[in-house]
């Protein structure tokens, strides 16, 4: 497969990167940020929304920071599994992403900003032409969504990153940086529907780093991932849970691979705890009811939804032990 041509830029500071992005935008041209490239470059080969410019974040020193409270966007997932000062939940989650080879390139930032996926979309150009394109990559045709036809307003491609729910249940925030400066927000607020928008990043803005609060260190977490094979596969469903042992009010549960964005289930947890004692099976059922997967990944949505209950129960049992 031939990579479509693009111009690769290598800024070495945050400022340089932001300026570069601004200057490309000023010329009316499009670009993509690239960290590890394990997601965006295969998509390019399939001619899925390739851009004439690609800006690599690899040269920015700050992006490589790795400490218990701060993880730069360029930190490879393999470092999470090998460095000493990483939260055990992140070690557990990172070791389940793709394969050990891919984790050498794949990064924290890339995983959080992962493009949403759909089997009508992650296909070659020839293939997508044969279905007359889809809403997410319509190539100017105004094509309809192929998963849920006749609505044409919403993309329901699925977010299949593993790291997001785990960072969420550790209370992580993200630092975004762009032409309008820096802003920080809880990771749970970073994601925004639909499958095309994915998150709040504005053009020219990128995710510089993830920060964890001090109390994250006290948290005990567990991540349950559903997949067909124990290597390579994206999650078909994933649930993370954590708490400060003994304190039910600190309980956090988040899920991924079920909708177009990962979700922190704060509302379900709150309602459940208000109603009484923490009951893993009861809470699991509540979480299950709150998600609506669609038919665009390897396993059917009905099954994936059923599994949310099992995964949540197991994640909760994992931290309650």
């Amino acid at each position, binding site marked *: 497969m031939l990579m479509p041509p693009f111009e690769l830029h290598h800024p070495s500071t945050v400022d340089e990167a932001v300026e570069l992005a601004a200057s490309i935008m000023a010329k009316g041209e499009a670009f993509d940020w690239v960290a590890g490239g394990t997601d965006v470059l295969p998509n390019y080969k399939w001619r899925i929304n390739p851009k004439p410019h690609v800006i690599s974040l690899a040269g920015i020193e700050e992006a490589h920071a790795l400490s218990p409270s701060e993880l730069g966007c360029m930190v490879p997932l393999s470092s999470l599994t090998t460095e000493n000062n990483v939260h055990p939940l992140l070690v557990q989650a990172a070791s389940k992403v793709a394969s050990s080879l891919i984790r050498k390139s794949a990064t924290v930032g890339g995983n959080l900003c992962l493009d949403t996926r759909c089997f009508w979309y992650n*296909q*070659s150009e*020839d293939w997508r032409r*044969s279905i007359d394109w889809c809403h997410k990559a319509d190539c100017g045709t105004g094509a309809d969504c192929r998963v849920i036809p006749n609505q044409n307003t919403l993309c329901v491609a699925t977010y299949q990153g593993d790291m997001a729910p785990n960072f969420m249940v550790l209370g992580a925030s993200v630092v975004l940086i762009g032409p309008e400066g820096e802003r920080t927000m809880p990771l749970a607020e970073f994601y925004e529907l639909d499958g095309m928008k994915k998150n709040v990043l504005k053009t020219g803005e990128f995710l510089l780093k993830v920060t964890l609060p001090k109390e994250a260190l006290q948290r005990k977490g567990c991540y349950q991932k559903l997949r*067909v094979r124990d*290597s390579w596969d994206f999650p078909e469903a994933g649930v993370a849970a954590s708490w400060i042992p003994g304190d039910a009010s600190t309980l956090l549960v988040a899920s991924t691979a079920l909708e177009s964005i990962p979700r922190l289930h704060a509302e379900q947890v709150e309602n459940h705890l208000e109603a009484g004692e923490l009951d893993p099976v009861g809470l699991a059922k509540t979480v299950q009811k709150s998600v609506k997967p669609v038919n665009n990944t*390897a396993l059917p949505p009905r*099954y994936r939804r*059923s599994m949310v209950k*099992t995964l949540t129960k197991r994640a909760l049992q994992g931290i309650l032990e």
Partner: protein
Amino acid sequence: MTMGSYRQQPGASSSEVRKDGKRVAGKQVFPPPGSGGSDPQMRPRDLDFIPETVGGKEPKPAGDHIHDRDRTGTVVGKPIPLVDSNAKVTGQAWYGDDVRLPGELIGKILRSPHHYARIKSIDTSRVEALPGVIAVSTGQDAPNRFGVLPVTKDEHAMAIEKVRHVGDLVACVAAVDEATAIEALSLFDVEWEELEPVFDPKKGLEDHDEPIHWRGKYHLARTNVQKRVFQEFGDRSLVNAPHASSHGSWTMSGVHHGFTEPHAVVAHWDPNGRLQLYTPQQVPHYTHRALSTVLDVPMHQINVIRTFVGGGFGGKSDPFPHEMCAALLARKAGRPVRITFDREEVYWINRGRHPSHIDVKMTADDSGRISGFDIDALIDGGGFASFGHVTSYYNGVLATAPYELGSFHYTGARVWTNKPASGAMRGHGAVNTRCAVEVGLDEMAESMDVDPIDLRLANLLPPHSRTISGFRITSNGMREALERVREGSEWDSKFRQLPLGQGIGIGCGFFISGSGLPIHWDPKNFPHATVHIQVDMDGGVTVHTGAADIGQGSTTAVAQVVAEVLALPIEMIHVRSHESDTSPVDLGSYSSRVTFMNANAAIRAAIGIRDQLLKAAWEMLGYHPNVLVLNDRRIYYKHDPAIGVSYLQALHKAQADTGALIARGAYRSPPMGGVHKGAAAGLAPAYSFSAYVAEVDVDVETGLVSCTNVWAAHDCGKALNPLAVKGQIIGSCHMGLGQVLTEKMVYGRTGHLQNANLLEYKIPSVHEMPHVEAIIVESSDPEGPFGAKEAGEGPLLPILPAVVNAVYDAIGIRLRNLPLTPDVVYAGIEKHLKKHGLDDAEAMASPRLKHGPLQKVLVARSDEHRERDRLRQRSEDTSAYVNGVLFGFDPDRPLAEQVEGWREADEPLPEQLAELGFAGRAWLKKEQRHMGGDD
């Protein structure tokens, strides 16, 4: 004095030797080139690898073999790395896409965006105008049809009138580089008329306005049926009042070979106007024939060069349209053209295992004999015939062994649909039915309260017998395979005794070792395989064969048997198998024929060389060849090893008058089989047998199945190279596990193939691989080379049913939708819970077994049969045995005379028409010639 001290080269001084026995670097004297390695001393005979029947120590429990006297203890039976492995591990093997010729162009193929459409026009003017485009070709350039089977030629280089699936070839272009070629594809202007596609094979049985292919007067009404089969043997009245029975309806998804190397081809018309075509082919000879037909060029003006093949498994055994495209473009351009597929194109050309609907009914009588198999197989052929004619038969007839049957009834149909074409894949045609049959036996054993292994052991056909359909069984290691996996897996302490979620299951396999009929010619006129050997003054042995090494080790097998006969180190054997210019015609690597047929031919050729050497030694030593021994580059008098000559001395003597020694050997199968229509399908000079036990863990809350252990016994006759055999067994387990647990070609609601890539087409990773205990069973086939039979395909069969049966043992649920992805298993569990009014999957009951009265009967019978089989295997009992003896019939008289109602039929009786299964309904349709319509 030990025998090892005899020197190879009289006159050459010894090397300087260290105290530890090794030679000092730079101080050793190399013998003259060609005398084999650098060891000047003859190694002692390796008696452990010389059969006891000819004075060695190798045990021969299955009796003596005609090739025993050709054994020299050199390499046969020893685990050795494949001879081409150095080229592969150092990255120097040249696969299809590694061929780079000066001035090459890159070819790309324009593919259909429609499932089914008529091409109204193709305008190539914009393509031709693009700078950098050198040649353009469309279907009109090559109107001649081709196909792997002469009876079903239904393919063109590119679509002539219609495209038949998304991805079907429409046109092709050659340009100076890939980017230009890709750009050029967007400049073709094609006008389409879309036609109504067919995706569901059941719909393929119905009449259609525009059948996908039209076979004229032989077309079945207006259906999309490509082939229908009916086979019935035996007395069907036996099945009417069964003591026990089982019935299973299966849906099996299509699977792909998943080989590593995508298809690639380089075509070049040399300065003399001959076509040189480089392609990773399993069957270069068929490509050779098809090229000749399509290009209108005589075969002798084409040289097909087989590159290294990065995995085939049946997926590279058809002549392919892209091979024609490359040749057409190269001819127009006057420059070499290279075409390499993307992975998606690999799935579009497909030829994987057929998606199938299989229905298996079976019955047993009150003494635990299998009174009937009733099989119906509807298989989805996709857009072209490929090997489908044969697959249609194999789905039935390869289930006629290893068990003795009271009757056998099979209806099969293969239909065209608007999907990529199915074809041959490892275990061709036998895998899906075998799975259904073996699971059916498990179910029937349960209803009889007997152990399923004992049910099998009490119903096996013995060695040297005949199946109900007339296949000649020679060696048969089925019983030993079953007994060894039973023991190895500790079956008797596990089966139906493990806790919920853990299970153990059994499955058997039976497969052809070479197809008895060479498709393109009468075996009476030409042999199946021919091998040439040439030995010149240097002593190196050059073997010319057309056997296509696709990674399975055929080159190694050929080198091994030649080295064995001539008693030469394997490094002295050079196999040349890449070019049709130099290779004798060979049918290539399919139907598990290569070791059996090619190695047999190679042994015969090597004996030809050996006899010339022995004659020369006789003249030099004065001892008759009968008392001469070949061992490690030396020929000497049996009773006094000091009296002898080196290999090179004998060779030079033999060459004195003639120059280089030349010999050839050929293999042809003996006449065999019945005379009914389809009798040749499944006929083979030998058959392999296998039995596997698999252990699984099932997560009852998620439906995830993991296979943890496999005990895999395979009867390969004789393991010429145990390392390679074990590799084949383990590899087969991996491939079969993929089909049973995770792999499927997913066609979505629009009929598009949804997962034409290796992320979503889920081949098991190393994490999913169980521990495989490979157990080699050696039944010493009388006609196999040194007793060998196939080991490349048969070992795949048993893993599927073993896993499905183990899942039942673990959770008590019969699942008949393959693959058993977690959602399928979970759906089964949910249904089961609902049926039994349970809330919690953990509360399900595991199946248990309490032996019924029949168990003793079966054990007693299998004890008797063990002795019967031993005597027959060793030819101590040579009486006739045909399927039916178990039911009390006389093997020496035709069964039709003895049994009222005995029938051998290849067409249904009118009264049977109403009760035929899905595929059988194809028999309700008439051929056009019987309809009085036009053709």
